[in-house]
């Protein structure tokens, strides 16, 4: 990637440069190049669709990691009002890699949580590149349990490569924290909408990914393991991440087919980083629709429906068993 542009965007970029040049001519030299420009625009449109609608799984992964992609706090800023960030796990530390708090969504109080990547190097270091420690999951759970107390819907915005695989994280029970988060989140009596906005890496994403409706941005990925690590384990070759990405079926379209997610939120052409406002507006619209639907479900049946949703996931053959009763 150079200047925030991927290799595969280069032909399009060059075309766009030429269009811009011609437009400059039009104004500066007072020449009518409108026909030439129209032709090129048409070509660019075609190329754009050609490129962005045929991204490989691996290209989608790279796109989901684009450094200018909106972060959780940016989505919160665009979508919610009156956000009040709350901190701490009441046990060990406030983990800056996960943010959370209360806000209103179109007048309705909600709890919103999510991992937060840094928007620059300094913030990335402070936020550990958005890789949570156990205390991050414990904070998220604490805030979600408070949402339960106050009957507030929960919005979980997920963008995380994975739970941090560090020494201290292991010491403080990363596995245990994830498991508890999954367990408790499953039984909260309030509507939960989860959105994979960028990366959905393994248990670190699932920990805060138990929802009634699970949405995914068009170019996000969600997988049991990162493509690199998968390639490393399978073929001892992390450069084959692209093959692994393909094999893992980690794109939104794949996952909707497998029943892991419920809906895809469209991104601006070329990815959310091309137009934050549009990405935010799309997500807002999706939340409006999904929260609206969930708020109509009686509280009593919400948890049962949620559990049923996960209960049926998996694929196996149920072989016939002939039981002969003779002894």
């Amino acid at each position, binding site marked *: 990637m150079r200047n925030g542009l991927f290799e595969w965007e280069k032909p399009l970029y060059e075309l766009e440069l030429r269009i811009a040049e011609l437009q400059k001519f039009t104004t500066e030299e007072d020449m009518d190049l409108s026909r030439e420009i129209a032709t090129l625009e048409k070509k660019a449109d075609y190329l754009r669709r050609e490129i962005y609608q045929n991204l490989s799984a691996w290209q989608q992964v790279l796109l989901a990691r684009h450094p200018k992609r909106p972060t959780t706090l940016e989505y919160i800023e665009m979508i919610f009002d009156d956000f009040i960030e709350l901190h701490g796990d009441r046990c060990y530390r406030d983990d800056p890699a996960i943010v959370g708090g209360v806000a209103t969504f179109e007048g309705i109080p909600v709890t919103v949580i999510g991992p937060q990547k840094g928007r620059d190097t300094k913030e990335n270091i402070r936020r550990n590149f958005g890789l949570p420690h156990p205390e991050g999951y414990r904070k998220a759970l604490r805030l979600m349990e408070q949402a339960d107390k106050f009957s507030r819907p929960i919005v979980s915005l997920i963008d995380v490569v994975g*739970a941090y695989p560090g*020494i201290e*994280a292991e010491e403080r029970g990363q596995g245990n924290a994830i498991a508890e988060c999954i367990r408790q989140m499953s039984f909260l009596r309030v509507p939960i909408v989860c959105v994979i906005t960028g990366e959905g890496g393994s*248990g670190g994403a699932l920990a805060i990914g138990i929802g009634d409706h699970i949405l995914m941005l068009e170019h996000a990925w969600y997988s049991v393991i990162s493509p690199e690590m998968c390639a490393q384990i399978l073929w001892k070759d992390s450069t084959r991440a692209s093959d692994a990405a393909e094999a*893992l079926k980690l794109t939104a379209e794949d*996952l909707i087919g497998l029943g892991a997610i419920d809906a895809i939120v469209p991104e601006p052409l070329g990815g959310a980083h091309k137009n934050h406002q549009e990405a935010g507006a799309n997500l807002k619209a999706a939340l409006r629709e999904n929260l609206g639907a969930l708020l109509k479900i009686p509280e009593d049946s919400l948890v049962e429906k949620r559990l049923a949703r996960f*209960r049926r996931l*998996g694929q196996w*053959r149920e*072989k016939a068993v002939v039981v002969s009763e003779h002894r």
Partner: protein
Amino acid sequence: MFKDLFRTKPKYVTVRPQAVSIKQDTSAGLWQKCPQCMNLIYKKGLEKNYYVCEKCGFHFRIGVWERLRQVADEGSFEELHTHLASENPLDFPGYSDKLAQAQEKTGLDEALIIGQAAIQGNPCMLAIADFDFMAGSMGSVVGERVTRTFEAAIEEDLPVVIFSAGGGGARMQEGILSLMQMAKTSQAVERHNRAGLLYLSVLTNPTLGGVYASFASLGDILIAEPGALVGFAGPRIVEETTRQKLPNGFQTAEFAMEHGMIDKIVQRKDLRHTLGRILSLHGKGLVPSA
């Protein structure tokens, strides 16, 4: 598998000790080298000693049938849900072959068996993972079996005992479906929990990744075998990510216990007795008449 298709209903399946498989087996002979103290151990003695090195206490990995022999009352085990067969839902390259190889190697249809059993007279639902089957990893069938274990336990008002050995965590060849088994099994644990029933989770070497970060660490009481590797990210990943030297004993059961993550480390020879005592302390028979 064929044996399942025309299965006579064996109310109590006899334990199959011939299926014993010890790992780190380097010789086909009478002697076994201990990978920890490097001593040569007489195999017959090893069998008698629960496959634990008499010299240094090293716990060899054991297969599901040997585990069953060691902890469950003889003849008490009734295997359940044997009729689930793994598929290759993602058409993941090489997965079908790997499954076939694992079945060949272990004689098992999947990485975990479940059933009803009794431990020192205490009835329970029992699940045992086998590391030799694709590193004990959890795909759809393992997840489904674990889930059914808890569901059957709720139905029958029974405690659950699970021996995890999921070093492979969630099985990547089933992609997102494996990840979802973490949710499914954790939810089953909590249903059982809310029914007021006991869940004993026994962590054997190694219990890592998505298995540890779901049902395996959610027991009311967590027990581990000495020296068992217990954690979320495997030690190699931690080392590569942090580029730090790992502390001595990192992610061993002893380390996990010091850090408050497990209740007890129990020698293999004491497991049956300890499990029996705990089950009996949680039994219905003991409720006071007031």
